[in-house]
């Protein structure tokens, strides 16, 4: 887990095979021609196939503590976690934690976007800036964000600032590195072609470099979205009074184990939804990219 929060390691723009391509059984042009009933059956069986592993995992989670393979005190059966989760929702407690967490995540994530994209464009476009900042970037990108958490707390205190700052820091790396890669990776022939039409450097940047880099930048943004949730939990374990990380930590400390699992579950689902949203957005902005 600690390793995954390092920003620098995942900057390579992903190839199409890197994440599973999801089928859309009801939208393919060929499917519409066929009869509706088999299509519906296929859709259901498709969903079933894809969720089979999840269902299996939940079943194992339910059964293992019940038959005593694992101590049910430490691994609460899934059904009881759901009940605990319902309690947290009903009491309004969970909503408060989710709100606090989302606020921090989105603030760090948003600030990272606002800062890292312009900086990445600058570094990618101007050689001298890249040469100047290169070694520092190299050093910091190889320093795990969480390793710096104590430093952030020391300097910025235990309040919101240090939490948002560490999320910002973790999110900034994939965006920065992908933006640099995006600008550098623009096909030189396109630049040549635009230059032959007499474009000034500024217009060239605006009309060729920027649009060409957009898909790569979005890959960085999506990765940053994942980090914003991953780092959040760790940040909230230190000196927070609300938030999902706080809930998980606090519940464990007070031996409210079902609540702890409810918190973990919530954060997983939150991360999943956020990632799905960003994936949608990324696809929308890269429709022209064929490879």
């Amino acid at each position, binding site marked *: 887990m600690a390793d995954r929060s390092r920003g620098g390691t995942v900057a390579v723009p992903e190839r199409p095979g890197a994440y599973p391509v999801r089928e859309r059984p009801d939208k393919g042009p060929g499917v519409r021609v066929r009869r509706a009933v088999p299509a519906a059956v296929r859709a259901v069986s498709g969903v079933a196939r894809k969720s089979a592993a999840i269902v299996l995992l939940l079943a194992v989670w339910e059964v293992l503590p019940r038959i005593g393979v694992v101590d049910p005190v430490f691994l609460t059966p899934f059904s009881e976690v759901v009940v605990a989760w319902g309690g947290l929702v009903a009491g309004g407690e969970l909503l408060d934690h989710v709100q606090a967490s989302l606020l921090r995540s989105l603030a760090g994530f948003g600030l990272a976007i606002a800062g890292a994209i312009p900086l990445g464009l600058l570094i990618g476009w101007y050689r001298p800036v890249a040469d100047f900042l290169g070694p520092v970037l190299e050093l910091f990108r190889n320093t795990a964000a969480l390793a710096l958490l104590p430093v952030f707390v020391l300097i910025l205190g235990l309040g919101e600032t240090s939490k948002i700052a560490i999320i910002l820091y973790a999110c900034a790396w994939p965006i920065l590195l992908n933006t640099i890669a995006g600008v550098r990776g623009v*096909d030189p*022939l*396109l630049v*040549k*072609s*635009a*230059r*032959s*039409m*007499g*474009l000034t450097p500024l*217009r060239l940047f605006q*009309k*060729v470099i920027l*649009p*060409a880099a*957009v898909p790569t930048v979005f890959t960085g943004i999506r990765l940053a979205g994942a980090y914003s949730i991953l780092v959040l939990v760790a940040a909230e374990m230190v000196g927070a009074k609300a938030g999902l990380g706080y809930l998980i930590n606090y519940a464990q400390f007070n031996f409210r184990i079902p609540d702890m699992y409810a918190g973990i579950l919530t954060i997983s689902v939150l991360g999943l939804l956020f990632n799905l949203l960003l994936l949608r957005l990324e696809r929308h902005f890269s*429709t*022209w*990219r*064929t490879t």
Partner: protein
Amino acid sequence: MSGQPKIALRGVSKVFDVRGEGEPFTAIHGVDLDVREGEFLTLVGPSGCGKSTLLDLIAGLTTATAGEILLDGAPITGPGLDRGIVFQQYALFPWRTALANIEFGLEAKGVPRRERAEAARRYLDLVGLNGFGGRYPHELSGGMRQRVAIARSLAFDPDVLLMDEPFAALDAQTRESLQEELLRIWEQTNKTIVFITHGIDEAVYLGRRVAVMTSRPGRVKEIVTVDFASREGDLRAGPRFGEYRHHIWTLLRDEVAAAQADERKVVGSHG
């Protein structure tokens, strides 16, 4: 004005400084060439003799090490919309539709939106792609992409069209139909065209003059004027066509041999 060439190259040389190599690398040396207003000139020469370099120089994308290049009698100082380039690899902007690609040069020229859209449609029609304007490059075939690229270069109405092996990546049928279309467009628009090719047939079929270059460092070895009494029927099958082809083939044969010997020497000195 009739006496003045559209493009004039006088003793043009281009020397590259290659990284890691001590001595500079001469791509072309002492090129003299006149391209007349409204003519279709094809340029052939062995691989690596500096054809693309020559085109870049005329386009203003690089500067000559020696000599001068005149456009309408004035030295070329940089790229401009008075010259359009068509590349072998199309170089279309993948995030723009066919129409938006054609509009690109017009945007650079500052043409208002309405006129731009109108002109783009007109040139899309001219290259026979009516109905494909909304497609992205990856949704078009190679031949269609090259048509879009040609339309893009024509749309901003340059006097000169510079084409670097534009049809080399296409299959034979597509190539022939595009050749015919290009001739039709040339006759309609009176552009001055400089067209690089590896195909002797293509050079003879398209060019009113064929400039043959020597092996590197490239010079213009000979200019062959191509003149058919009639272009009706299957031009390529006629005896005149065969004579031109044979003549250019003979000119090129020695140069290709020299180029290959030179390449072996370069490879040898590195190994």
